[in-house]
């Protein structure tokens, strides 16, 4: 039960952070790199990435759908966040088994945190997931063959910031003592 409470707190914190602060950063900061405005940093895929490995498939898909629609509702982009997050939720078990050497089904519940997976495996796992999510997200957002370099550019820059923020959040939400296997 303690566990469920933890995920709810995390959901609320991350959503407030994304909607109230990150969604505004893009508009307010006049930072330009090569003349292209800097995109919105997206931290919310983290909510899906840190779910336990043996979570019910339908619960996870529904959770992704709810997060996606909430974000769409607040940023006037119906279906954009939702579809990319649902894609990520579907691919996550496969990507997780790629970067986690032991057989997940035998072990049971594994929280893919930095302390459980190890720093390097965790970083590869996060980077790969974020790459898939961002590439799909920005392709859908830009949606033209003319601007393929722009898509790659946005994916790369936004991805670096997202991976950095998720890694930092691991230090905030988990400490070395509170590992629950």
């Amino acid at each position, binding site marked *: 039960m303690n566990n469920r409470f933890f995920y709810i707190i995390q959901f609320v914190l991350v959503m407030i952070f994304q909607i109230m602060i990150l969604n505004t950063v893009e508009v307010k900061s006049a930072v330009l790199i090569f003349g292209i405005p800097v995109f919105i940093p997206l931290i919310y895929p983290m909510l899906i990435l840190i779910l336990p490995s043996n979570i019910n498939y339908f619960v996870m898909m529904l959770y992704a*759908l709810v997060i996606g629609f909430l974000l769409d509702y607040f940023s006037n982009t119906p279906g954009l966040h939702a579809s990319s997050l649902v894609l990520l939720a579907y691919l996550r078990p496969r990507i997780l088994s790629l970067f986690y050497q032991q057989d997940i089904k035998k072990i049971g519940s594994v929280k893919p945190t930095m302390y459980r997976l190890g720093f390097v495996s965790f970083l590869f796992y996060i980077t790969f997931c974020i790459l898939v999510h961002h590439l799909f997200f920005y392709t859908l957002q830009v949606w033209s063959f003319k601007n393929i370099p722009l898509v790659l550019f946005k994916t790369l820059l936004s991805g670096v910031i997202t991976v950095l923020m998720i890694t930092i959040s691991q230090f905030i939400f988990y400490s070395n003592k509170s590992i629950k296997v």
Partner: protein
Amino acid sequence: MRNLIILLRTYYRFFVFIFIFIFCLAIFFRNNNYQYASAIHSARGITGSVHKKKQNVWAYLNLKKNNDSLLAENARLRSRLGIKLKNNPLKDTAFSSLVSEDSVKQTIYYKYIPARVLNNSIDQKNNYITLNKGTNDNIRKNMSVVSAKGIVGKVTHVSENYCLASSMLSSKVKISCVTPNGTIGNVSWASEYDADYVVLNGIPQSEKLKKGDTVLTSGFSLFPKNVMIGRVVGTASGGNSGMKRYKIKLATNFRRLNFVYIVDDNTTFERTIWEDSIINVSNEQ
């Protein structure tokens, strides 16, 4: 039948995924279309009030900058029309501008309604701005929105307390404009990612525009006449043969948009409704 059930049981994850995924994509592509733009979420009550709270905090952080720009604008406006108006403009929150004046009768064409920007985006294909005025303040669809420095966009959706304006940074918005020589052209957002520049179309080869020339609205579209759009910075590639394209730097900074004015213009409404009715009748015949 048995095989079908086995197939479904083996690949049920994939089928569920495809079902939800296509559902999301269908919503996305249906609403992404400019004509069917029903993305009026931020004009609704709940999200509107959340954006309002967010904007309260951010506006506080930018307070000094906003005050300076408002003071400068007030000074400019008061020097321009403070003497001509009979009633004290400071008593009215919505002040009015005189366009044609008579010694006997003064006709008011434009009415400027100040509004605050609650939500703003610049990174989408079609960008929208949420404003804190709605039908309660007599805001209607297709009213134009201007800022202290230049044009912003036009109102597309209205609710009771909020309205949503499609900003100049939208792929389908085209605005009629006029160059210093009097040539009429149109301005649109061509780059789809650069929030500082728009492209001026439809200028004949014979006309040469210099760097720094101002481009103003012509008054043929919904915007009032002689509102600043931006300055020419150079030629742009592409376009039809025979017509030249110019790159224009916008006067309005869409990254720091806090206060705007919604223009209430009765004559334009009458004109556009009349024009539309004529076009519709001639199409039906």
